[in-house]
C-alpha cells in the first residue's frame, strides 16, 4: 500500500526546488553509454534462444528484460534520484500485480485442483497439441452468433427454445415447468386450431405481447435475422402433430 504522507512536510512553494536538487546528480549520467548497453543487451536476448536451451532462453529473455527495465527506469526516468515515496508507489503497483497473479493463477494456470477441474480448458489443450491437427476448435468462420450460412434451426431450437418448450416442442421444458401460463405445446392440435405460421413468426420476432400473449415469451429480433426467424418458424411448424 502506497505511503501517502510525505516524509518531509515541506512548506515548499517553489516548484523548482526538487527539480534542481535531483538534476544536480543526474548531470553525471552518460546517456549514450546507457543506450549502447541497452542495445547490447537486446542483441544478447535475441541470440540467447538460438542455443535452444530453455533456461538460457528464459534467463536471457526475461532476465535481460528486467535489467533493461532497471536501466531505463533509473537512468532515463531518473527514478534513482526521485523522492523515495514514488519508488514506494511504483513498487506497490508491481507487488499488487504479483499478488493478483498469485491469487488467480491457482485457478487459471491449473486445469484441475482439489476437487475441481476445468473441462473446457483441458479439452482445448488436448485439441491443440500435436497429433490433433485439424481439430483446432476455433477458426475464423465459426462465431458465437450463428449468422453464417450454416444456421441450424433445429439445433438453435434445442439450444434456446427447448428449455421452456421442450426438445420435442411439447411445452415440458425444465425452465417452463413453473411458468404461468405454461409454454406453448406445439404438439397439441388444439394449439394449432387458432394459430398459423405468420403468427408464429410474429411471436418469435416480437414476443407474445405483440399478439396479446404473456410477456414470458420474449421477442428474439435482437438475436436472429429475419431469415433465421423464418427457419425457426419452419422448425416449429415441423413439430405439429401429423408432420
Amino acid at each position, binding site marked *: 500500500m502506497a505511503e501517502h*504522507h510525505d516524509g518531509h512536510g515541506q512548506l515548499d512553494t517553489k516548484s523548482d526546488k526538487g*527539480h534542481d536538487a535531483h538534476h544536480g546528480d543526474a548531470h553525471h549520467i552518460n546517456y549514450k553509454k546507457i543506450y549502447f548497453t541497452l542495445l547490447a543487451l537486446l542483441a544478447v536476448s535475441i541470440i540467447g534462444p538460438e542455443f535452444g536451451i530453455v533456461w538460457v532462453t528464459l534467463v536471457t529473455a526475461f532476465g535481460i528484460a528486467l535489467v533493461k527495465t532497471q536501466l531505463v527506469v533509473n537512468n532515463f526516468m531518473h527514478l534513482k534520484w526521485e523522492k523515495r515515496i514514488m519508488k514506494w508507489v511504483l513498487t506497490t503497483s508491481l507487488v499488487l500485480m504479483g499478488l493478483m497473479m498469485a*491469487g488467480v493463477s491457482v485457478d487459471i494456470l491449473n486445469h484441475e485442483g482439489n476437487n475441481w477441474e476445468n473441462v*473446457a480448458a483441458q479439452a482445448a489443450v488436448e485439441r491443440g497439441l500435436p497429433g490433433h491437427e485439424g481439430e483446432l476448435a476455433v477458426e475464423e468462420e465459426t462465431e458465437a452468433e450463428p449468422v453464417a450460412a450454416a444456421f441450424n434451426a433445429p439445433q438453435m431450437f434445442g439450444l*434456446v427454445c427447448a428449455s421452456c418448450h421442450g426438445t420435442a416442442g411439447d411445452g415440458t421444458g425444465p425452465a417452463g415447468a413453473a411458468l*404461468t401460463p405454461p409454454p406453448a405445446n406445439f404438439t397439441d392440435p388444439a394449439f394449432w386450431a387458432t394459430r398459423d405460421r405468420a403468427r408464429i413468426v410474429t411471436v418469435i420476432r416480437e*414476443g407474445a405481447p405483440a399478439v396479446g400473449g404473456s410477456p414470458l415469451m420474449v421477442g428474439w429480433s435482437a438475436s436472429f435475422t429475419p431469415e433465421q426467424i423464418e427457419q425457426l418458424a419452419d422448425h416449429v411448424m415441423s413439430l405439429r402433430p401429423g408432420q
Partner: protein
Amino acid sequence: MAHTATETALHGDLHHDAHAHEHHGPQGILKYIWSTDHKMIAMQYLFTGMFMGLIGAYYAYVFRMQTAFPGVSVPGFGQVSPGEYNALVTSHGSIMIFWVAMPVLIAAFGNYLIPLMIGADDMVFPRINRLSYQIFLLSAIILIVSFFVPGGAFGGAWTAYPPLSAVGEYNQTNLGSSLWLLAVALEFVAFLLGGINFITTLMNSRAPGMKAYDIPLVCWMIVIASILFMLSVGPLIAGAVMLFMDQTIGTGFFDPARGGDPILWQHLFWFFGHPEVYVVLLPAVGITIDIIATFARKKVFGYKLMLYTTVATGVLSFFVWAHHQFVAGIDPRMANVFTVTTLLISVPIAELLFVIIATLYGGAIKLTTPMLWALAFIAEFLIGGVTGIFLGASGADIYFHDTYFVLAHFHYTFFPIAIIGTFAAFTYWFPKMFGKMMNDTLGKIHFWGTIIPFNIIFIPLFVLGMGGEHRRIYNYEHFPELAGDGMFLLRRIATVALLVMLAFQLVFFYNCFISWRKGAKAGKNPWNSNTLEWTTESPPPHGNWPEGLPNVYRGPYEYAHPDRKDDFWPQNEPA
C-alpha cells in the same frame, strides 16, 4: 524577484501575486461547459450523481413491486418481463455504485472540499478536472442510451459474469451489453484522471504550515480512496477490454466454448471489486468523523490511529477479493486463505468505528441534522459490518451466497455509505456551497422518514435470505418453497417501506429548494468549525481566498482548547 527567460519557460507562468489571478472564468451559460473551477465541477458531479440516483431508485421501485406483487402491472412502468427485470437489477446496481456513490462521495465532495480544506485556490490540474467530468458525463449518457437500444439494457448483473455477459445470444442484449461495458470503462477513465488530480493536489498544494497531520481526515480519506481505486482498477480495465472483444468480435478470453476461462473474469472483477467497496467507504467515514468532531466539539479521538488504521484497511482490502467467489468453483484451498483475510479485515474497520464512537464520548453533542446523519451512519454500518462476518466464513457462505442475506448485508453497508453519507455531507456543507442554511426541522423529518423505513426494508430481507430466498429471481411464485405467504408478507412489508422512504425524499428536495431560495443567510462559519473551508465566504468566490491564500498554524480539530475562550480554534488564526 528576477525571472530569467529560462526559468519562466521551465516553470510556466508564475503567479506569486494573488491579484494576478484575475481570470474569472467563463460567464453566462457557457460557464457550465467550460468552467474549470473545482467548485463548479463538484456541483456538476453532485447533480449528475443525484440525478442518476433518482433513476436507480426508480428502478428499485419497479423491481421491488414486481418481486412483492408478481405479474401485476407496476404503476409508472407497466408489466415487467423477465428480461426487463434482469436489466432493472443490473442497472440499479451499476448506477448506484458507479454513477451515484463514486461521483457524489469522491468526485463531488472531493473536488469541492480538498482545495478549500488545504487552503488552495483550485485543483492542480483544472482543465483535466473539467475533462474528467466531461468523460464521466459521457459515460452516464452512454449508459442511459443503452436503456433505449434494441434488445434493451444489459441484464447480466452488475458483476457481468461471462459467458452470459460475453455472448449476445445468451444475454439477449447484444448492443446494450457492449454499451454498458463502454460506459463503465469510460467512468473508470474519468475517475483515474480525477484521482491523479486529487492525489497530486493533496500531496503538493497544502497551505504553508500545513503538515501531513494537519490535513482534515475527510481529505485523507478521499485521497486514500483514490489511491486504492487507481491501484486496483487496472486488472478490471484489462478484463473489460477482453470482455468487450469477446462480445463484439468473438474472441475467447472468457467463453469456455472458445477455450476461455470465466473464472478469470471473476478474479479480475473482484480484485478491483473488493477494494472498490473501501473506495466508497473511506470518504463516508471521513465525512462522518469531520461532522462528529464539529458537533461533539471535540478533537478526533485518535487522528493518527485513524489514519494508519485506514491505511491498514486499504492494504488488507487487496487480500480478500475471492470471498465473493467462494462457491464459484475456485480452489477450495484458496477459500481457506480468503476466509482468514476477510475475517481479519473486520478488525481495522471495527477500530475505525470505535475511534468515531470514542470521539463522541465526553463531547458537547449538538444534534443538528448533519450530526443525526453521521450518528446513523455508525449505527447502520455497524449492522452491515457484522453481517459481513457471516459471509466471510466460507462455510457459512455456502448457504448464504446469492441469497438476500448478502443483499441485505451490502445494503446495510452501501446505504450508509452512499445515501446516509451523502445526506450527511450535503446537509453539513450546504451552507458553504449555497450560502443559505437548510431548514433543520424539515431536515429532521427527512432524516427519520429515511432511516426508519430503511431498516424496515432490509431487516425482512435478512430473514428472507436466511430462509433461502435467492437473488435475481424474477418471480418467486415459481419456487414453491419460496412462495409461501409468510415470505410474501415480508417482501411486501419491505416494498411498502420502500414506497414510504421514497415519498419522504420529497421532503428533502422541497427543503433544498426553499432553503436555496429563502433560507437564512449562512455566514462564513455557521457551525463554528475549525477547518479552512469555513474561513472564506459562503459560497467561496473564484480563487477561494481572493485576498490571499491562508497559512496554517495548527491541526484541524482543535476544539475545546483549555486556554481559549472560544471552544474552537480555526487553523488559519495565528497563535
